[in-house]
């Protein structure tokens, strides 16, 4: 501060300051106007843009999942309901360090690699901000408690209760009702995103799939105001979801249980139909699986176990299993022969135990053929051919009918097509024809092929459902009722694209009478000595308290070489014959038609017929109902 002494020029300095301060204030006003301009721009010019942004911030549309329709059996018993399931979910926006959070969760309730993998996969799927992503399903009460206690240390981790499908009968109804599965990314691409926006599951097989649109219900929504952390502050407006329709099926749980028990641990299927309505009362395929496993996602090892099992438990034998029908189609061939006038009730053949075509050395054996030519049924008319299940009679008849007429007549009974109204994926089986063989194998139809068809072997394939349907049509004397699962509701008609087969009305009454009475003798003709009794009498007919018409079938799995005797115990279990039995009862006023299949089960009369009898017994005799034994 050593300045040369000089007087300060106060006037000059205050002039400088005046200029600068006034300039400064001018700049201050200018800059304030810039601020004003910016705010004017934001608040007036771009107001609508920011107003929209602000609303998008706070208003979220949340889907309200409808409650899936319940499924009842014919007695009103619940066979598919919804129960709360507790899932551990993570809202990723609230998580600071995902790996750390996953580590904590693993410590608390355990996490498998596949659960983490699944979670990360779901994380990549499209979702709204602050939408939680499930990490672990079906928490136990203990898990819930453990997570709840530690939740404060894990922001973003929550336990959510959701209603999920539950099948109270577990395995029993698996193949009858089908099941729902978790919606995956592939489903999402084809589904209506809006309709499924609140729903995690979709009917994947069976009834759950076919009636999906009815069971699903209508999604509701609510517009909510949320804060920046996604917490709902208030509900602005909402539309409640409409629950899915409840379905009542023809399936009878108790009958289903009887059928399942009767099959026991054997592989096979039982289908029983109410001849009055076509309603499927029993649809059992064994072994089965617990559909509840699939609802929230089955772990890979368990799934691989089911998928790769030699017993194919996931396979629905009742509607997809295709087997040779064996002798069960003999009544239909007899009927065709009578209708076509090729045979009459008095027509007989002499059965030496084998059949051969002219100019062909191959022997087509009867089932009681023995080496040395001592077998055979002797003199056989149609009735006897049926209750003794004589092969040679039907070799003859088949050859005389020819494949065209056989094809035409069997088709009337639903073979080679799917006649079920609400089982669109049921297999069609195979009803061979000249054209079919030419188209698929490039070979002409040989007379030997027709001979085999005569006893339901060779190329022909049927499903248990188809044989039960055929039994129903016989029971109804040609009047068609299409098999169906659903008992009531007009939905059925809306969904179905299956045409209804025409009634078989060209068959005269006496032909039906003869066919049905012969089938009745299969069960009831007894005490006539071996060789004269009905094939099933010894096994089910001796004490039967009602009238039943039936027909056994035994379908070989491997061809038997010429000149070789069929030795069952030498065959490996899985090469043994399939056992069939079809039946309906009571004969005069049929209330149940049934088909039983036992895979590699052996003889039809011996093994399949008792299963049918147990089911029919239960249906006809339950309660105090007693039926008069008829002639």
């Amino acid at each position, binding site marked *: *501060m050593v*300045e040369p002494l*000089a007087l*300060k*020029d106060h*006037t*000059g*300095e*205050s*002039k*400088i*300051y*005046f200029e*600068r*301060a006034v300039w*400064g*204030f001018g700049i*201050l*006003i200018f*800059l*304030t106007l*810039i*601020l*004003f301009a*910016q*705010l*004017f721009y*934001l*608040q*007036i010019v*771009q*107001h609508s*843009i*920011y*107003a929209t*942004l*602000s*609303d998008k*911030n*706070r208003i979220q549309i949340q889907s309200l999942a409808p409650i899936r329709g319940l499924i009842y059996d014919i007695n009103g018993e619940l066979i598919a309901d919804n129960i709360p399931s507790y899932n551990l979910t993570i809202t990723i926006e609230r998580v600071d360090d995902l790996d750390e959070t996953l580590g904590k969760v693993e410590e608390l309730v355990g996490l498998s690699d596949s659960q983490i993998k699944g979670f990360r996969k779901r994380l990549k799927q499209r979702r709204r901000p602050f939408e939680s992503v499930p990490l672990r399903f079906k928490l136990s009460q203990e898990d819930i408690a453990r997570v709840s206690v530690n939740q404060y240390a894990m922001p973003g981790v929550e336990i959510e209760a959701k209603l999920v499908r539950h099948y109270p009968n577990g395995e029993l109804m698996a193949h009858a009702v089908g099941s729902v599965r978790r919606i995956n990314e592939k489903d999402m691409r084809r589904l209506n995103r809006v309709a499924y926006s609140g729903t995690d599951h979709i009917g994947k097989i069976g009834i759950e799939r076919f009636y999906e649109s009815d069971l699903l219900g209508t999604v509701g929504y609510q517009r909510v*105001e*949320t*804060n*920046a*952390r996604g917490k709902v*502050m208030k509900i602005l407006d909402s539309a409640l979801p409409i629950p899915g329709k409840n379905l009542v099926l023809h399936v009878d749980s108790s009958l289903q249980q009887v059928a399942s028990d009767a099959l026991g641990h054997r592989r096979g299927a039982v289908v029983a139909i109410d001849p009055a309505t076509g309603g499927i009362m029993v649809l059992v395929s064994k072994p089965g699986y617990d559909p509840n496993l699939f609802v929230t996602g089955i772990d890979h090892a368990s799934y691989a176990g089911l998928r790769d099992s030699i017993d194919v438990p996931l396979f629905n034998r009742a509607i997809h299993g295709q087997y040779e029908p064996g002798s069960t189609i003999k009544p239909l061939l007899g009927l065709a022969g009578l209708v076509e006038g090729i045979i009459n009730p008095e027509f007989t053949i002499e059965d030496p135990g084998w059949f051969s075509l002219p100019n062909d050395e191959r022997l087509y054996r009867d089932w009681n053929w023995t080496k040395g030519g001592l077998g055979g049924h002797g003199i056989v008319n149609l009735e006897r051919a049926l209750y003794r299940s004589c092969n040679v009679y039907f070799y003859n008849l088949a050859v005389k009918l020819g494949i065209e007429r056989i094809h035409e007549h069997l088709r009337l009974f639903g073979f080679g097509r799917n006649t079920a109204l609400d089982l669109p994926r049921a297999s069609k089986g195979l009803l061979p024809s000249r054209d079919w063989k030419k188209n698929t194998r490039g070979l002409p139809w040989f007379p030997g092929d027709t001979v085999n068809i005569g006893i339901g072997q060779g190329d022909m394939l049927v499903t248990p459902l188809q044989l039960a349907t055929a039994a129903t049509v016989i029971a109804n004397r040609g009047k068609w009722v299409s098999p169906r699962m659903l008992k009531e509701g007009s939905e059925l008609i809306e969904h179905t694209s299956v045409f209804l087969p025409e009634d078989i009305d060209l068959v005269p009454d006496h032909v039906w009478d003869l066919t049905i009475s012969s089938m009745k003798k299969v069960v009831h003709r007894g005490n006539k000595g071996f060789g004269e009794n009905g094939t099933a009498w010894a096994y089910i007919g001796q004490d039967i308290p009602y009238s039943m018409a039936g027909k056994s079938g035994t379908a070989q799995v491997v061809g038997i070489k010429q000149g070789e005797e069929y030795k069952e115990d030498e065959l490996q279990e899985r090469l043994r014959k399939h056992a069939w039995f079809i039946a309906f009862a009571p004969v005069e006023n049929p209330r149940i038609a049934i088909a039983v299949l036992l895979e590699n089960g052996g003889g039809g009369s011996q093994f399949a017929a008792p299963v049918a009898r147990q089911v029919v017994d239960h249906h006809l005799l339950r309660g105090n109902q007693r039926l008069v034994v008829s002639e």
Partner: protein
Amino acid sequence: MSQDFVRHLPGSGHVYRRKSGLGEKVHLDFPLVILMFSISLYGLLILFSAVEQQTGPVLAQAIRLGIATVVMAVMAQISPIVYLRLAPWLFILGLLLLGLTYLFGFEVNGSKRWLRIPGVLNFQPSELMKLVVPMILAWYFHDRHLPPKTKHLVWASTMIAIPVLMIAAQPDLGTALVIGASGLLVLLLAGIPLRFVFGSLALALAAAPALWFLLRDYQQQRILTLLNPESDPLGAGWNIIQSKTAIGSGGLFGKGLFQGTQSHLDFLPESKTDFIIAVLAEELGLFGIVILLTLYVLLMGRGVIISLQAQDTFGRLLSGTITFTFFVYVFVNIGMVSGLLPVVGIPLPMVSYGGTSVVTLFAGFGMIMSIHTHRRLTL
């Protein structure tokens, strides 16, 4: 402008005896007091909304305002001559405290800004420097011929640079910038030749790329975010997007007091401190903003008038600088919240929630009032 000003026109040469009003007696300037209270009350109303209508924080802020008012009144009683004599000692004290802060400072969020004597007080020496830097420069130029010579400018620049660099090292870039700006304002008001002004501006622009690399990552990020907030809408851009959304959605008259969705649903960050003007803009619209801006301009206008009436260089430069620095706060804060400037932590004066800055601001205006009310009444 008042009659007083006319009599001070350069060249008039004389100051006549004037009537001594009540203001002079209690050493308060009522226009300033009324404007400050108006802004503060308006601020309390906005704060009441910003804190979800809890009375607690509003009461706390009112108590701070009360304390600040007392500080202002006390500062106004002290003669400017005392400030002039104390200036160098306060400057040295301030530097010492900054040094102590650097050594023993209390660390919050990675920066040492606080001196803490447990149980006695928490104190930010940089806050003191907001007033002391204009004081030391006004003191320095008080005895010098104006406009300043180059060597004086070198000394003055040094006096600015030392505290600014010390505060920048804490690091507290926002405060360092504001204090640096207040120092430069003194130079400008002292009549620094305009060629220096434009020369340094050109230099600063030329040096900008080099300065860029001196900035820390988060500081670079703030500037990048300003240029394109949508580049990281959930991260660095969130604050600015949400504040612009709050402001823009307010429209002309706003969503209504207490009705702001951006602020009450927590989309707006720091809604009661640095971003509080977004609450005002959202709830009372451009209309509410214009009221606040008008009050601010009137307040600063009164400050400029007072500085023009000051009788010596110290009084002129100090009151002028305090007034224009106040505008720097206003401009930087509103500019930042409305997306014109990068995000720097500067509160909106007299409105944002918080104690220290209010006390400093009021103390500054207390000094202005002291300068205005201690004028010699006779020639």
